[in-house]
């Protein structure tokens, strides 16, 4: 089986971009250069489904929230992003959620991407709805469904811009340490319906990615979700869960740790990837980082991209 490779979210900013943003000097140009160099790196590394690196995004949440009517992004209410040392401003939902047409374009560096066939990464409806301060809706599901409807419009616009792959990030599906883990099972049908609202009839391939926690408790249920690929963080997930993989789903193997400076040896992770693929029986597979590479300085993040690329090459050549 041929194994592809792709990146999964916000990439690390370079020293030059950090400085440009800090001093508000030449920001646009620095953004463009950073995104161009990342696209070039992906192309040179044989990475598919090119991403722009979302280099203007401070978190996966605020830019999406800023595209929505009924949602405010405050200057305060700083909240931790799961179990990381990164933070986001928790948006407030103060009215009915609706997409503001055209607004997502501001957050995509489409100019550095090919005209067609690139990938966008967005928070999945459940994760977004779980991370906002709801001051409007009486019912959580109502909020999640309205967000999903808005996201549907957002995605349609991205597809119109040349996006062919949409990754929906759903860490809240697996990371809920203070909730009884069985309670998520009760809401999974609604979560699936919300994902369906986003994906149904759209001319793109969708993946759903979980990370920061073991995906095995919900994996069987997620097979029913209307997405083509499922991404798993294999630094957290019990490998036993992979046997019985739904072979109609592609598997995205998050086996390069995006939160560690330790550089994986391609030979060793190729071996791990092979054993996962043998167990899963998946027909399509992609290597990727566990999550966004923004948790590392740029040089190390780029090095991880090369590790992914080299691992994919080894898998392809059988070495």
């Amino acid at each position, binding site marked *: 089986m041929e194994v592809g490779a792709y990146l999964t979210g916000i990439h690390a900013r370079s020293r030059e971009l950090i400085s440009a943003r800090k001093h508000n000097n030449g920001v646009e140009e620095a953004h463009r250069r950073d995104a161009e160099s990342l696209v070039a790196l992906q192309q040179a590394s044989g990475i598919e489904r090119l991403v722009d690196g979302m280099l203007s995004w401070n978190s996966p949440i605020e830019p999406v929230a800023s595209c929505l009517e009924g949602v405010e992004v405050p200057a305060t209410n700083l909240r931790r992003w799961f179990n990381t040392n990164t933070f986001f401003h928790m948006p407030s939902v103060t009215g009915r959620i609706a997409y503001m047409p055209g607004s997502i374009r501001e957050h995509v560096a489409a100019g550095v991407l090919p005209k067609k066939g690139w990938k966008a990464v967005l928070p999945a409806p459940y994760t977004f709805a779980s991370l906002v301060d709801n001051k409007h809706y009486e019912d959580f599901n109502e909020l999640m469904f309205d967000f999903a409807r808005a996201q549907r419009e957002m995605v349609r616009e991205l597809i119109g811009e040349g996006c062919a792959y949409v990754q929906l990030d759903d860490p809240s599906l697996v990371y809920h340490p*203070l909730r009884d883990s069985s309670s998520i099972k009760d809401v999974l049908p609604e979560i699936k319906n919300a994902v369906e609202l986003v994906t149904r009839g759209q001319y793109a391939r969708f993946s759903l990615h979980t990370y920061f926690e073991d995906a095995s408790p919900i994996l069987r249920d997620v097979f029913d979700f209307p997405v083509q690929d499922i991404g798993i963080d294999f630094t957290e997930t019990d490998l036993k869960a992979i046997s019985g993989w739904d072979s109609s789903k592609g598997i995205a193997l998050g086996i390069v740790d995006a939160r560690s400076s330790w550089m994986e040896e391609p030979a060793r992770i190729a071996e791990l990837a092979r054993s996962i693929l043998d167990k899963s029986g998946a027909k399509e597979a992609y290597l990727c980082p566990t999550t966004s590479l923004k948790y590392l*300085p740029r*040089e190390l993040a780029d090095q991880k991209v090369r590790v992914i690329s080299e691992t994919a090459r080894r898998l392809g050549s059988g070495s």
Partner: protein
Amino acid sequence: MEKLFPCMEIGSLKKPKWLTRVEKCQPVETEHVADMRAWAEELDINSSQLELLLKEPAKNLPEIAKWASLFAVRMQEQAGLDVIWNGEMWRSEMYEDPIGNTGGMNFVSDYSGTHVWGDNYYRAAECAGQIQFTKPWHLEEFLHAKSIAKKPIKVPITDAHTLGEWSYDSHYVKNKDAGGTRARRQEAKREFILELARGPLRENIKQLVANGAKIIQLDGPAAVTDLREYTGRLYDVPLFVEAFNEATKGIDAEFHSHICYPPEGGYELLFKYAMEMKKCAQFNLEFANRDLWSLGASADERPGYAALSVFKEHNDGRRVGLGVLDVHNDNTEPLFLIEDRLLYASKVLGDSALVIAVPDCGLRTRSLGVAHQKLCSLVAGADLARAVS
């Protein structure tokens, strides 16, 4: 402390331009000198010697940092705080200084490239060898602060758990050959953090206390980063507690723990374990960031302080440094809002003597002017609360 609602700072203040320019080997401009003069007048500091130093900044950085400490100390004294610090003017920041002076740690980049939030980054390091004490982190800084302060001082030091949590590790993790990758990471993390606590952190604390430090605040913003269970038990918060105890046991000083920005439910979980921190007399906690700005001292009106009732459930007499200033907002909290927050906390804890007025965190992201206004408001709000208690 005898008076109710004493006021303290948490640690850092923004460095003045006339210091940061010197640190970066950039010229100090007329406007920076003018700003310095304005503050000197405000704080009644004779700055003529500093002006001479600023004319030849390249060779005078250590002396200029001492002057910046003096300004920070006098600013806090003038605002009326009861316990002060030097605004961490000697430090690059809370992570880089201690880690840069710890054996076994190497920075992974020569710039601050690890993202935290917005456009805020830090310069992360990885553990590449056995952790060792190499030199004191803050002793000289403390001795200088002690020599200039007219009020009691509190020395903030980053705790071992946070230093470990914010670092990468390629040493301890590779020495572990436990089963899954998660098991290996958890065991390596424990070994790494406890080595930091028992070695360099403890040695630093001992040296500070031997030289007269009476109050030490261990900064643990990462304490409640990871709330997951591992093999059936909570892992990270007990490790934070264990590291605190290892660093402080048997040392004769008053210890505080500063914790901020937990995820949802993080404080509630932490408080179940907090009383096991044997030497911790006071928990300095961020709350204002998540609270409303409208007035009132009822539970509905103070949603940001909801976790206090859980603290009360578990508390065995420890104090709370109540964050009443949002350090990420330039607006100054009105006095009556501060009063209401303090009175609400007193009501929940059932004892006003357990409530200390503090900002949510260090004020380093605000301008000195904003920080000064906020601290003045803190003191005045505490006065109001005291008057009705």
